[in-house]
């Protein structure tokens, strides 16, 4: 027997704290996991969405192409419309996301009359080159995202969004 014996009071203190902690954890763990579920949910990448923009009509000048898809928002499913800025570089189709990398507004091609060959964000005057490269000295901190894009029977089909691969 060691000298520092555990008193009855200490023993009860430890046991009750242990059992109480176990019970509290049993109660709280499911609720906390329930609350943080959105962080841990997996999202599969979107399928390609066919647009009614003919590939033949696309030039080197970016045009806005709208595309609609079914969005499942928990228990609410709805049709939402997104858009992309699409142009050709040689034969290659390129589609850029219109979401500004500063704080999420929507950019326009040639939206600023003084910079007719750039994307322009009206919120805080962010600007980007045609390939999405953000222009130093304007608020955005990175290049515009890029969509996967392909030619599907002569029409533009738009896929998942990913980091810009052009800059």
């Amino acid at each position, binding site marked *: 027997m060691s000298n520092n014996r555990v008193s009855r009071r200490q023993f009860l203190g430890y046991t009750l704290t242990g059992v109480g902690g176990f019970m509290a954890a049993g109660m709280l763990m*499911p609720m906390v996991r*329930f609350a943080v579920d959105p962080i841990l949910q997996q999202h599969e990448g979107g399928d390609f969405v066919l647009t009614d923009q003919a590939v033949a009509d696309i030039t080197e000048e970016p045009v806005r192409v709208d595309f609609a898809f079914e969005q499942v928002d928990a228990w609410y499913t709805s049709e939402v419309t997104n858009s992309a800025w699409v142009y050709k570089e040689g034969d290659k189709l390129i589609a850029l996301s219109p979401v500004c990398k500063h704080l999420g507004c929507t950019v326009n091609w040639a939206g600023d009359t003084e910079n007719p060959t750039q994307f322009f964000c009206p919120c805080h005057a962010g600007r980007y080159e045609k390939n999405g490269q953000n222009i130093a000295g304007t608020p955005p901190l990175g290049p515009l995202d890029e969509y996967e894009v392909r030619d599907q029977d002569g029409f533009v089909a738009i896929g998942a969004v990913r980091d810009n691969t052009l800059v």
Partner: protein
Amino acid sequence: MLNKLYDWVDERLDITPIWRDIADHEVPEHVNPAHHFSAFVYCFGGLTFFITVIQILSGMFLTMYYVPDIENAWQSVYYLQNEVAFGEIVRGMHHWGASLVVVMIFLHTLRVFFTGSYKKPRELNWVVGVMLFGVILGLSFTGYLLPWDMKALFATKVGIEIAASVPVIGESIKILLAGDSTILGAQTLTRFFAIHVFFLPAALLGLLAAHFIMIRRQGISGPL
């Protein structure tokens, strides 16, 4: 580490007397099941409180996903139960707890009745207890509509018709509860939701505070 933190705060704010006053009491022999096993009947008040705490916690978490709208209520409950991790458990806690809390408060009331603890000087606490019983039944009634399934709808129809059978003011009570003179629908659901998660829980907390303050003042009633 924790002891040091405690001492640091205690040195400045003298918090020891506060929790001693709340928590440090001897359990009288006649309410301690270790002495007389039959004293377990004195646990029902504490168990009622314990389950009420579970109801409040699980209810707060359910409200993260639940929407009180007739188009989406059922869908959101289905989603939170089947698609969200541990949804079945969290909804299950609230669902089964709602019945258990009524059982527990009933047993607690029986104990108080048969030990004669409602007698002088504890009459007021009996009155508060009856109000607590009413609030818990109100929470059960209003909560039952929220999943917005067939059972919820018809149970509430019946409940509202019962309220409508009160002489003279019955019709007004019915409209006040349902939010419409003929339809049990959109406005009924939002009202029941507001009553279930704001009004009655607020009343519940106030009454519980009164209940416990009176118990601290008067102590637990003596042995039979």
